[in-house]
């Protein structure tokens, strides 16, 4: 992708500015490298009407974006704060009808992204038939196996997000990102029109030059822009680097139970970026 003379490296606010209002934004699950610093920047710039695609689930990131009124729609297989319980803003917004929800199941989201990866309009899946998910998804279709008429499968349409956003442990200045075994990030990037990443650390060199690194690299070919954000997944974990901040997540769980508490949380942890 064209990145200009300065290369793919930009700052966090510039990265957040690339996520335009009304776009379809793909994010990874909590265990995979969540761009939380970029999410706070996105909230600080008052992003609106995003369609969020959780690939395939989310937690704090989706809850914050919902509570800060950044979303129009969420497609997800689940939203929860994990061991900290239900995601309070998600639960409230769905109950109030404040946000459109497309309930999915994990493999359907994976398959939709894989369809976009392959440039085909849909992929067929087993299972799901008889689930109310199918009854409520007018974009999922029952189709006949063309090789064995009468054998029904569920077709799920390609999911081609406008932007994929995540946090990787390491990136070089060419835009190559080391993601290790977190290959759901690769699928997201292949499927998305643009990929924006924050990186925990910057590698001075070429991550593709060493075979031991290369197999775990998402090449710059798929990467639009990168911002250096140390502890960029905080308060969530970054696998192999740091654990989730349990104190913070527990404080969030309690704060986000009501509108005032959530507003105070945002003022404390997100709004200062506006003044910065």
């Amino acid at each position, binding site marked *: 992708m064209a990145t200009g003379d300065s290369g793919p490296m930009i700052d966090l606010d510039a990265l957040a500015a690339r996520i335009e209002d009304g776009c379809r934004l793909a994010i990874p699950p909590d265990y995979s490298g969540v761009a939380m610093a970029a999410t706070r920047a996105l909230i600080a710039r008052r992003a609106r009407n995003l369609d969020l695609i959780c690939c395939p689930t989310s937690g704090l990131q989706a809850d914050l974006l919902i509570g800060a009124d950044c979303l129009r729609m969420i497609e997800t297989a689940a*939203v929860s704060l994990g061991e900290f319980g239900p*995601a309070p803003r*998600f639960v409230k917004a769905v109950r109030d009808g404040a946000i459109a929800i497309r309930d999915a199941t994990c*493999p359907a989201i*994976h398959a939709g992204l894989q369809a976009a990866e392959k440039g085909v309009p849909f992929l067929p899946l*087993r*299972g799901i038939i008889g689930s*109310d998910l199918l009854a409520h998804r007018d974009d999922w279709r029952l189709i006949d196996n063309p090789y064995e008429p009468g054998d029904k499968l569920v077709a799920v349409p390609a999911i081609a997000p406008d932007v994929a956003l995540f946090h990787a442990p390491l990136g070089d200045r060419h835009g190559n990102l080391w993601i290790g075994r977190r*290959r759901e990030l690769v699928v997201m990037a292949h499927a998305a029109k643009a990929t924006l990443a924050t990186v925990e650390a910057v590698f001075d060199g070429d991550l593709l030059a060493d075979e031991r690194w290369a197999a775990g690299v998402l090449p710059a070919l798929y990467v639009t822009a990168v911002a250096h954000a140390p502890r960029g997944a905080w308060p969530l974990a970054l696998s192999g680097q740091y654990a989730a901040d349990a104190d913070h997540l527990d404080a969030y769980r309690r704060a986000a139970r009501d509108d005032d508490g959530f507003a105070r949380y945002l003022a404390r942890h997100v709004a200062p970026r506006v003044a910065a």
Partner: protein
Amino acid sequence: MSARSLPAASSERAVLLIDVLARLLAGAGHVAVGALSPIPGTAALLARALSGGAMRVTVLGSSRHNAFTDGGRELFDCAAQGRIDAFFLGGGQIDGGANLNLVGTGSYPRVATRFPGSFGSAYLYFMIPRVILFREEHSPRVLVPKVDFISAPGASEAGVWRRGGPVALVTGRAVFAFDRARRRFRLTSVHPGETVAGIVAATGFDFDHAETVPETPAPAPEIAALINGPVGREIAETYPGFARRLFGIGATAEENKSEARA
């Protein structure tokens, strides 16, 4: 993979449940355990220990007990390839037909109570031969006559491709077997201190039962020792707070702090 489960009431009850679940896994070649499932995870590691290493166990969320390297889809593809023999599912509501609701109560989408979501249940229930339903809370609000939303159906019509499905339901009070042909649960044992009448009263759906039902056997001392020892230490990698609270294992100052809040 389930709505948030309540913490085991006591170490003794948790050990009983782990023992019950591990016996249901006997003979499986590959057992996978979803996220946020400390008791099923411990049961799988116990079953592996009892298999003499013949059983493969994949614990999602673990680094040591999870060999997947191909991203989030690999669990589902692996199940679709027939490489996973047993799995656990739960639900905010479970009905007498073993239908699971992980979405919410009341009328969708503006539900009265919203659960996290269906996760992979709508798929894995079809793919994995031996699905064990586990929900510690045993009450009429969880075990309902009919779920308000079917995330994953307990049975399918003839002609719908299906390799897997429910074999049993284990709760904090009892064990049921599921008869796929009749689409009904049958009470197979009640945990110590429970009665058939008590289980009937606490269960919102009809099920089959004899007049008297055996008591769920207490774990053998050597099984309890395994759980409180090497197996407990193995699960502590993924669920440190759980292992410390129930087995007094793996405690560090950090975990003590996080436990104080739990």
